[in-house]
């Protein structure tokens, strides 16, 4: 079962390495990981996707909570939530392909943010599935480079994760 955890962390050197170290040490896997400071500079917010059954997720959550620098942990997949991922993708665009790629990009509501004679760099946001679908739609030959941010998640409506 895929799970999306939101973690509030002290924004301190070494704090993130404890989170990652915990996953390695206890044999939990990290599928995507994304981290940045929040509006409160003393806190970082991590969104981490992992897989496991209920027991495993419970253990992961408990062990995360044991880390001194972890302030809060929430399993977003427990309730309604929103997920987004950002992708920057460089694709080959020459001749007839140029139009084709542009059209595909429009269909997925992407933006071309850099152009050369033979390539476009496209920015796309959405769920991970949408990003996967875009890559498939382009066909592998066109793809030169992909960089994805990993999933960011937030609870829906008035659910708020804060101190």
């Amino acid at each position, binding site marked *: 079962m895929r799970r999306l955890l939101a973690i509030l962390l002290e924004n301190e050197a070494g704090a993130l390495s404890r989170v990652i170290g915990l996953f390695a040490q206890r044999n939990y896997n990290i599928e995507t990981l994304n981290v940045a400071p929040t509006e409160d500079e003393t806190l970082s917010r991590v969104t981490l996707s992992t897989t496991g059954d209920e027991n495993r997720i419970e253990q992961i959550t408990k062990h995360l909570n*044991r880390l*001194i620098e972890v*302030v809060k942990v929430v399993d977003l997949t427990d309730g309604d939530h929103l997920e987004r991922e950002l992708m920057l993708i460089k694709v080959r665009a020459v001749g007839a392909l140029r139009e084709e790629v542009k059209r595909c990009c429009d269909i997925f509501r992407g933006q071309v943010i850099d152009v050369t004679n033979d390539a476009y760099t496209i920015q796309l946001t959405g769920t991970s599935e949408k990003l996967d679908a875009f890559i498939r739609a382009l066909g592998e030959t066109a793809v030169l480079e992909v960089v994805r941010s990993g999933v960011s998640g937030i609870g829906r409506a008035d659910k708020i994760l804060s101190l």
Partner: protein
Amino acid sequence: MMTERLSGGEMLIRALQDEGVEYVFGYPGGAVLHIYDAIFKQQRIEHILVRHEQAATHMADGYARSTGKPGVVLVTSGPGATNAVTGIATAYMDSTPIVVISGQVANDFIGSDAFQETDMVGVSRPVVKHSYLVRSAAEIPRIVKEAFYIACSGRPGPVVIDVPKDTTDPSVFFDYEYPKSVSLRSYSPSTRGHSGQIRKAANALLAAKRPVIYTGGGVIQGDAAAELTKLARRLEFPVTNTLMGLGGFPGDAEQFLGMLGMHGTFEANMAMHHADLIFAVGARFDDRVTNNPAKFAPDATIVHLDIDPASISKIINADIPIVGPAGRVLAEIDRVIEAKLGEDPEALDKRALGDWWRRIHGWRKQHGLDHDQRHRQGLNGSLLPQQVVQSVYRATKGQAFVTSDVGQHQMFAAQYYKFDSPRRWINSGGLGTMGFGLPAAMGVQFAHPGAVVACITGEGSFMMNMQELSTCMQYALPIKVINLNNQALGMVKQWQDMQYGGRHSHSTYRDALPDFTALTESFGHVAYRIDHLDELDDAMADVFGAKHRDDLVFVDAHIDPEEHVYPMAIKGGAMNDMVLERVDGRDDIRDDL
């Protein structure tokens, strides 16, 4: 009041004084020389110069386990720090509070592969409760305060403070003030149990027909032995302890089933397997206890009390989990039960409990530790390890602090020395660190100068930290070392007998052992050698008598090298699957030593 102006090194030592630290176990080197100079200029803290940093951590650990107060270690960067790691991991696995201060190269040099640089925070990360890298000297008082608070509160554990040399510079001064409190928004260990869960637990206990109270190190570390004993006595339920929990309930009480688990007693393991209610207190269902978790106690309702939520339902699912400090929660459960029994004296099913006790007594009679077979004579009148431990028990009237190492001798000590109070039995249960026993005994002796401290060890384990005999000479520590000398890595050899057709691959030393009596005498200590049963009690009376009150005495007890530890859990089985007496060449035993 004028604030004092102190250098970083002085602040560090001053902060330790303000924490009430009596001893620092350490070893100097380049990165900590400023700190050592600060130590030189004060009297309140006594520094103990060890001979190896691993031993320093075990001493601090022994000090902590026997007192409940944090042990403190000071080591230099690089090899000093890495030498300490085994001891830190040992403390981590058994949740004991130690604070390890390691020197580090100056902040400006970090990351440059400077001389004696090791990323100590990185190396120790998986085996600490928390760690700090000091970025500027001004942080030192706050970091020390937090480190001690974190090490000692909640589920205790080791904390590392890595101190770059520039932050201890003796020529730069700061205003020193020791914080009165800590504020950590992300850390607040639970201070009481949930009252609804407490009521549920009390009801489950009252309804039980075949109960067992199973307690671990949490009762010792949480200072909950008195509360446990009171509740267990009120209920008259059978009690068993883990290897870490011995002394949590009086070991000589009729109600006590002995240790459970891999080398636990027959009656303890049988009772666990057949129980309809298991009340686990400060224990973590370690694989050395449960054997195969899938076959564990099929009929039992599990009530699990622990300070650490992560220990609950980790291996065995708890039906009634309670997170909280053991002592306080046990006292509350006891109050609820006292009230209920007051209203209705029949609330306990006395008849069912009577039947249960009859079954337990039957198991005890059948295969208990006092069963005749276990008192067979050694070959040609040679000594059996069990007899040596029993003789130590008699000679010390059960009142010694006993440390141990890892191997057969450890199991014999745990089985045959009956601890009637907590913090007396000190051993490395979780990590199983050979070499723990002697330095741990030293830490205990520093903490309790007048007490009788015995280290029951094996020659293999002893040789892993025997350099500390020199430290014992320097500080005149009157430890009694009982070396159960079977001239082999006995526990390894036992497994090879049982499942590798007796092929003793590298578990014996081929006559390369030292003469231990001459060896220990060369350090200025007293030594005895015992080969026969008929010398045993007289020798022990001497060793623990007034004559040697101030001496370190090393007893080299040459025991029957063929003896095995029984009972022994059968690999993959339930708790009632045990080998009870010598069988060679079987391959259905555990395969992970």
